[in-house]
């Protein structure tokens, strides 16, 4: 079975009629197409790839709609399918597997010298004066796994619990990955600010 269900411990299969399936699809899935397309674009950086990824995700969602319980979190369910499709299809195609060593991330997060002086010279005003492209470039420069947690949390507003289900990782790992991702993003922003001579 496709591992797209968010609530695997509580998963039950429904038998929707074709008409019901179309109604659920229209009412619960399609309203999230903007977020889905933007998530796909921020993962792939290509409009055509983003389009294919979203299309593929919606087709899978429809095919496995009987495992979706109406009124539950459709957006998180769709994001999970999209993320899995990206890993299984798109990332393999691009031959760019994750280079992140999460054990290293965990030990970094738990170490005493975490955060040291990485961002001491980045100011709030500098960040506020940056334009959208500068923020986007810094975000896009992050490894996809770090970029993903920032997108899910800060752009899409998912809770840690939802992120854990979307990404298939424990909540503690969501927190540590997010923490590390934000430090890396700050470092990119600081370097950018220094390069541009921002005060």
């Amino acid at each position, binding site marked *: 079975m496709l591992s797209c269900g968010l609530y695997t411990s509580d998963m039950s299969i429904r038998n929707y009629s074709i008409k019901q399936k*179309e109604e659920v699809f229209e009412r619960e899935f399609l309203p999230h197409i*903007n977020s889905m397309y933007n998530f796909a674009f921020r993962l792939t950086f290509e409009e055509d790839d983003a389009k294919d990824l979203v299309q593929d995700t919606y087709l899978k969602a429809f095919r496995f709609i009987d495992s979706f319980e109406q009124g539950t979190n459709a957006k998180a369910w769709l994001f999970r399918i999209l993320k899995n499709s990206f890993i299984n299809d798109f990332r393999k195609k691009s031959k760019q597997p994750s280079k992140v060593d999460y054990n290293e991330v965990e030990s970094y*997060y*738990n170490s005493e010298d*975490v*955060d040291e002086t990485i961002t001491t010279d980045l100011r*709030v005003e500098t960040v506020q004066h940056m334009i959208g492209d500068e923020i986007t470039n810094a975000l896009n420069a992050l490894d996809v796994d770090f970029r993903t947690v920032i997108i899910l949390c*800060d752009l899409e507003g998912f809770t840690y619990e939802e992120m854990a289900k979307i990404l298939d990782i424990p909540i503690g790992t969501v927190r540590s990955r997010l*923490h590390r991702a934000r430090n890396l993003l700050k470092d990119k*922003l600081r370097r950018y600010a220094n390069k541009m001579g921002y005060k």
Partner: protein
Amino acid sequence: MGRLSGAWLKSKLKFLKNMDCPDQARCFEILQLVLDEEADEAQRERFELQIKNCMPCYKRYNLDVAIKDVLKNKIEVKSVPEDLVDSIKFKIKNAT
């Protein structure tokens, strides 16, 4: 007196600014929970106390809030291609 106080305050602030938080790993963890609205009441209380008394934590939190805000509000939102929804619906119709 006023001038003395000002100079003292300035040097004190400079000292605090350059000082590290003595328990930063734990504090930064709580700052993140508050930032993401995931903190419980006890963590929130500790946070309130911490940012009043610790300049590095205060600065860190304000920076984190600013970054979260620009991420949310300044990154371009792409428009969904016009034909995407129709294309999805068409493929579903053909598959059923």
